[in-house]
């Protein structure tokens, strides 16, 4: 076909690629564009001298999201972000996490929270989230256990909604007992297993001759004594 004389002065737009004024292609522009908003979000909460979001930033984030700082959904967010350090989000963590959530604004993030809850609740994810919750509390280098006070709060936060009666009694016990001042990951994991597997409140199917951690054996004894004294 013989070339027509161009009617326009500038090159016609092509659906496949358009050269912009700076010469980069659309696809990467779109990418950067996507991160731009995420990054902007990040900057708005981050502590500039640290280069990451610190506890103050998280507080602000919570307020914008309309949730309490101590809400379990923030912990879930941290899990999603794979945040390594309690109270802080790095830029990478922020980027990867929000990208997965497919959000790039506060309002979208707010809307995504229920979805996130559902995701965490899936059996394939829950164990991971649950262990994460513990590790998130290990603030010192080489720290392997978490103090009782924090564990009680964590129990309330993580398991309170689903296992209210067990959690209340367990917290009561943890506070009165004196054998253990800290809880390790193994014990933490078994708290969940206890709530999931053991009948409550009769504790009928609890077998102390199995490998349950000693603290749970003691908890069961305490519970049984409590009930018998009625």
């Amino acid at each position, binding site marked *: 076909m013989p070339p027509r004389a161009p009617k326009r002065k500038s090159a016609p737009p092509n659906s496949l690629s358009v050269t912009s004024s700076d010469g980069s292609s659309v696809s990467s522009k779109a990418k950067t564009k996507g991160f731009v908003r995420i990054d902007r979000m990040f900057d708005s909460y981050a502590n500039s001298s640290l280069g990451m979001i610190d506890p103050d930033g998280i507080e602000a984030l919570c307020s914008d999201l309309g949730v309490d700082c101590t809400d379990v959904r923030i912990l879930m967010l941290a899990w999603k972000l794979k945040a390594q350090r309690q109270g802080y989000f790095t830029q990478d963590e922020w980027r990867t996490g929000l990208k997965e959530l497919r959000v790039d604004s506060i309002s979208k993030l707010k809307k995504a929270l229920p979805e996130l809850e559902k995701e965490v609740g899936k059996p394939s994810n829950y164990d991971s989230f649950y262990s994460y919750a513990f590790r998130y509390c290990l603030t010192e280098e080489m720290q392997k256990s978490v103090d009782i006070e924090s564990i009680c709060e964590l129990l309330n936060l993580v398991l309170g909604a689903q296992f209210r009666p067990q959690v209340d009694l367990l917290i009561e016990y943890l506070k009165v007992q004196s054998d253990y001042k800290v809880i*390790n990951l193994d014990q933490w994991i*078994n708290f969940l297993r206890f709530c999931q597997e053991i009948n409550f409140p009769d504790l009928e199917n609890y077998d102390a001759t199995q490998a349950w951690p*000693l603290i749970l*054996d003691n908890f069961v004894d305490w519970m049984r004594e409590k009930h018998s004294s009625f």
Partner: protein
Amino acid sequence: MNRKIIGLEEGLGYMQDGITKIERILEGRPEPPFNSEEYMKLYTTIYNMCLQTPPDDHTQQLYDKYRQAIQGYITSTVLPSIRAKHDEFMLKELVKRWANHKVMLRWLSHLFYYLDRHLIACRSLPSLKEVGLLYFRDLVYRDVHVKVRDAVITLIDKEREGEQVDRALLKNVLDFFVEIGMGQMNRYEEDFEAHMLQDTGAYYSRKASNWILEDSCPDYMLKSEECLKKERDRVGHYLHSSSETKLSERAQHELLVTHVNQLLDKEHSGCRVLLRDDKVEDLSRMYRLYSKIPLGLKLVADIFKQHITAEGIALVQQAEDAASSKASNAAAGVQEQVLIRKIIELHDKYVEYVTDCFENHALFHKALEEAFEVVCNETVAGSSSAELLTTFCDNVLKKSGSEKLSDEAIEETLEKVVKLLAYISDKDLFAEFYRKRLARRLLFDRSANDDRERSILTKLKQQRGGQFTSKMEGMVTDLTLARENQANFEDYLRSNSAARPGIDLTVTVLTTGFWPSYKSSDLNLPAEMVKCVEVFKGFYETKTKHRKLTWIYSLGTCHISGKFEQKTIELIVSTYQAAVLLLFNASDRLSYSEIMAQLNLTHDDLVRLLHSLSCAKYQILSKEPNTKTISQSDYFKFNSKFTDKLRRIKIPLPPVDERKQVVDDVGKQRRYAIDAAIVRVMKSRKVLGYQQLVSECVEQLSRMFKPDIKAIKKQIEDLITREYLERDKENANMFKYLA
């Protein structure tokens, strides 16, 4: 010569004649026996007829004739004669007829030998003898065997009641039962034995039911033993040997098994009572009777165990009661001595029972062990058995011990102590208490003699292994070395005029690892003693530069001269007591707080010390106010008015109660031991279920103590935290070893 053909009629005739002749002989009729000629003729006739060829081959008919003749004889003569009689007479007739029958068949087989051979060879028919026997079985036996059996059983029961019976007759009848089986035992077993056994069972069932109500246990056992013996005899005399086991079992069952509980538990004569009254012979009989009956023997063993346990617990209770009724320590100590002695005696007594009455049977050894494991783990007045045993040893081994025995008796006693240790589950507690007592004996020179100390250690080593005794042996050796060292120290002093401690000084250097742990004190030593310590340090540094000396003043002894008004008395006191007393060289009167400040002691220690010097038997110090207890507001003065008839007295200082410390130390050791055991097991198994892990640990540790399951659980958790183990992700009851 021409062989003449023998016709059938002729042949049959000959045969019949021969048979008839034999019958008549057996019937006892007047009939001359076969002479050679007659015999030869008959034999040859038959022989020739067998060789005749058809149409003169009549062997089949001859055979049939034979059969008919036998049959006829039995039917017409033999059977009726047996049937005509009854009971014993019938048996006699049967026996006679059977004997005759066998003879007859033998003769006929000889006579008609060739017929036999020929037929069997050609046509595989039953032999003449077999035919004869079969007829007897089918015609006679089938008819009379029930009556015969009943008659036999009646006689047996008669014999059981004590009457004399014709044993030879019975033997013959029973042999008949066996023989008529023709190679099989089934006629004997089904037609006779089974019924005999049933009758035996019924017979003894009746007897046992009466006896068990009327007789005492020993009497019942005697009767049973007799009966069983008689039944065995019976087999020897007329029953077939294969009946022995079945008969014994049946009789045993009725006599010993059916009423076993009633027998053993008889109120005034049962097993418990026999044990209580030491009826050794009856108990031996009981063992003999039940030795082949496992379930019965187990019952006896259980009663044995319960009996020993009860006796042991009673001894413990006695000691407990005595200890709580007397207030003073001395009395309590005596009770403990007595208790251990009594337990040893109890053990000796029942070991003899096991060897003599119970023929060393494993069940009874086990019963004894289990009983003592209970008895030896009881607590008396707060002291564990481990502690009691060490106190006992202490008394045997120390100079002033309450056990005044010959060397041999001591050796024996020590042996027995070591044996008892096997029953105690907390052996590590024993070891720790033993070390503490040993330390006091060695350091305060209370040990009676070194040989005895080494002797018991050797015995302990043999029983429990070298690791158990290594520290203790180290302690004894330390003392020997210390004596040498002291000699060297004295040489050093002599050759070194600058190094003068000013007082006679003996130092005992101990190897830390061997001895129990002692608190080193912050006591402010009197100046005189400070010099001593310096001098010794100087000496010690000439011997070795690599060792650190930690001084334990609480173990020291001091001889002090007390210059009282009446006379000077030498006081033998502990170093601490001496430190207190020496303060009064500089001051007349001191308050509690002043003493405390000058010496830097704890309240507990100070109260003890001051009490021993001012409120006990010898009041070296006088106290204001003059009460019997020490309070922090008291004042003390040197009691110059004190005196005693002796020139030298020892002021005892009651030792601190070590029990708590020992229990704590052992608790710590156990945690390490449990930890090590878990690691050992997991290292070799790599992956293991919780329950198995626990049971393997318990087994490994049981040599020294019985571990608390909770303690094991705790250590597992600790090891998880220390990342030696991890819980399996799929199965929470499984553990993995992390290399």
